[in-house]
């Protein structure tokens, strides 16, 4: 049972309160009709499947209900940091400091 820090509640809480919501920083294109089939395919289906730090979305579904972003190391399953939706993807230096 992981402990996850909700950046909105500013509390570290058990994983059971949260739901995973896929890879982060994949914005829906403003005008999907302008995309080629290949570009749309990539938006729909192509994910990084990172080994190591992975930027992903979580929802504090049994808490405040907010979606937020996290960087989790897929090797150690450790959360390196969590941050609010809409914030910039943190640089690696920031992650190392957080760790």
């Amino acid at each position, binding site marked *: 049972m992981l402990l996850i820090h909700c950046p909105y509640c500013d509390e570290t809480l058990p994983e059971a309160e949260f*739901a995973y919501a896929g890879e982060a920083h994949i914005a*829906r294109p403003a005008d*999907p009709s302008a995309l080629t*089939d290949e570009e749309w*395919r990539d938006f*729909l289906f192509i994910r990084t499947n990172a080994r190591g730090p992975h930027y992903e979305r979580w929802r504090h579904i049994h808490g405040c209900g907010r*979606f937020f972003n996290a960087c989790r190391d897929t090797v*150690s399953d*450790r959360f390196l940091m969590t941050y609010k939706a*809409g914030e910039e993807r943190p640089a690696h230096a920031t992650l190392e400091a957080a760790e």
Partner: protein
Amino acid sequence: MSRYRIPGMGRVDPARTVRFTFDGRSYTGLRGDTVASALLAHGVHLMGRSFKYHRPRGPVTAGSEEPNALIGTSRGPGRFEPNTRATVQELREGLVAESQNKWPSLKFDIGAVNDRAYMLFSAGFYYKTFMWPRSFWDRVYEPFIRAAAGLGKSPTEADPDSYASRNLHTDVLVIGGGAAGLQAALVAAKSGARVVLVDENPEMGGSLLSDPSVRIDGQGAWAWLADRVAQLRAAGVTLMTRTTAIGYYHQNFVGLVERVADHLDRPPQGAPRERMWHVRARQVVLAQGALEKPLVFDGNDRPGVMLAGAAQTYLNRYGVKVGDIAAVVTSHDSAWYAAFDLADAGARVAAIADTRDRVRQDLVDAARRRGIEVLAGHTATATSGRLRVRSVRVNPVRDGKVGPGREIACDVLLICGGWTPSLHLFSHTKGSLAWDADNRTFLPDRTTEACQIAGAGRGLWGYGPVLEDGMRAGLAAAEALGRTGTPAGAGVEGDRPGTGVTQKELPTDRSAGKAKAFVDYQNDVTAKDIRLAVREGMRSIEHVKRYTTNGMATDQGKMSNINGLMIAADALAKEPPQVGLTTFRPPYTPTSFGAFVGYHKGATFELTRRTPIDPWAEAQGAAFEPVSLWRRAWYFPRAGEDMHAAVARECRMTRASAGMFDASTLGKIEVAGPDATEFMNRMYTNPWTKLAPGRCRYGLLLGEDGFIRDDGVIGRLAQDLFHVTTTTGGAARVLNMMEDYLQTEWPDLDVWLTSTTEQWATVAVNGPNARKVLAPLVEGQDLSDEAFPHMSVAQCTVAGFPARLFRISFTGELGFEINVPARHGLALWTAIHAAGQPYDICPYGTETMHVLRAEKGYIIVGQDTDGTVTPQDAGLDWAIGKAKKDFVGKRSLQRPDIVAPNRKQLVGLLTEDGTRLQEGAQIVLDPNQTLPMTMAGHVTSSYDSVALGRPIAMAVIAGGHGRMGETVHIPMPNGTVRATITSTNFYDPAGERLKA
């Protein structure tokens, strides 16, 4: 007093006799005994048969790592447990124990022919022996394997016991109550930290319980132990015995299982059998000690062959002498002390054979003083004795050459191949291990958790170094918590230091190919099997493990992994760390399902959601079905009706006059705000801008991939307010999806989403007389077709309650759905039921709802769609707002594979001979094609239709929309059924009845 019990020794209570039975025979033991120690006190070593060869076996250990002495235990109906370790199970009054893997009896077992057919059952026999002829697999091999497979008997009755579950938060969790753990716990507690100390045994002490001659701080070991436990209590440490740490998970989350009742003569009423503790500790100290390894040589598994440390434990802790004449074969100093204790207790120790050429002189002298013959530089090459060891054959080894053998008579053979640090929990955390080349063992290296490892788990030996290390770990834990600990030294006299060497299988002067030199006792894996696996191409230790099953038994190779690795490494001519070690996984020891299940069984398995109208349905004797977590009325049988008759009647009465249905489980979401219309336009396929307040529309929700996710009728109550309904099972998913887009893609939209599923109770009234039933109850809304046409919504009063009234239909009949605040749901229902009596109104359940909607071809998302169905596939392209620039999933409707021809499309099916098809049945276009046939699609819905007088079905069929009128074939076990493709709109295709 039983023959092998030594008065005055052990921690058992000689004044308290406990009676039990083993294989139907009565025995007595003492309070404090385990089943194994009590049987050994009577000279009984034979406790079971092995798994594969059915070889006679006795206990080799005195602890939870025991691979052989597995027994069935029971205490009345439903309370049978297979594979209980006799070395762990404490004696209780009236305990019934039985041996396993034997027939007809433990002493004479037919299955032991496997032992003679040894050559057939070598590594990988599974893959080789049963290959041919193919036809033998179903009738001969598989039944044989199934009958022979398995360990012990499965219980056949429901477990009547209860199991508890608790959470625990602490500063420091110390796992293992031996010398190191006791020190760590005390030092940490004295720094002011909250400390929990757990141990799997009935009492704290670890190996101190087996080493009473050691003196610590001027006291005997047991006096020191009692004093230390008292100090821990005084310091506020929580002491938990009979508690096994089964798994170590992320962020210092540790699972503990406490055995609450199995050792009690009569458990208190209502007491749980076991209790699972979910512990979150800021610091963990692993002080789990080390496990003794056997030596690998021919016949090292006979009853009477046991680990030297186990014999020492039986002697000192239980006062049981494991035999009259002992022989010892060892590669570690520790076995020498075990031999000395036995000799001092009056047993004859014939000889100590040590595989090492040179042994510490003080040990040799101490042995000779006791009249024990010392044989350094020796190997063991055989044992004799069928149900009990009678002798061991030892040979000198000089310069790698095995000399002539010599038989040493004995009735117990003590073996010791060194000790393996117990790092299972450490491995659960993915902590890395480092190979200690000097001691040829793996030691903990890098930790991933906030944890300390202390004592024999770090390869330390002797009480002095271990106590010191426990103190160090306690100080480190305190410091990590920002506290300051005080060092607490402990002076040890009469310590028992020791070293040893790690061996592969022992050298022999006989054919190694014929040796039954066991590495894994529980799975009957021999050294020969491991070498064979390497010869046959296995290179990775993971492959060797799976091919031979070494370490795959319920003991997870606690005793066998390192010996197996040594042999595999030798066969591969590599160093052990290059071959690697297999991964340990939770649980540390076998754990009952009950402990995991806890409270989640029976009525508390999962929650049951009930609508406000549920009590009425129950009082009417409705049959119920689970729908997601809801309990829904399925049908309302009248006297003498079965399901088929009840559903037929409900369908008939509803179409003839009026029916009423509890639709409260429908998901409901309120979409409100200035940008509500824009939000709805973006989420749903349909256009919403021009939908006037007071009107509703069937809404279709796609995923971004273009496939149907959900549907439901959506009413517009005001410019800025939509009442969205979803499928019963989809409510939470749809709200989650809406929230996702609103929060992360369109945070600029001013919209609020509120789940109102449980705030509204919903009653559907359908049938030609629906208006007549309802009209007298409605205030504030004219129900006439002109004033309130199909697809209208109004806020008004129904039966005196504020209501949202919809004119919609999921049956094809004139229909209304009335939503009132949930607390009025039951009153609304009874009011409508009373008002409907003149019209013979019929309450109907979900089955009739399904039939009526299928007659109209209305889909159920998740039944007629499966996550790969587009609006076009389902015949719902009319629901798409084609003029809209964008909505979720719109772009995907142009994807090449979505616009490709011959996609599976939803159609109706009518069978030619009136057979009702099975949902899920596969459909083919040509029944005479060669096997395997090409599937064209499958049946999604199928019902008997009263209105049509025949069964109807819906199906998805490749290119189905272009195949109207064609015949397809549904091959079933009793013949192929022919069916015609039709429209899905079977009943009243013009929709006249809606407008009634």
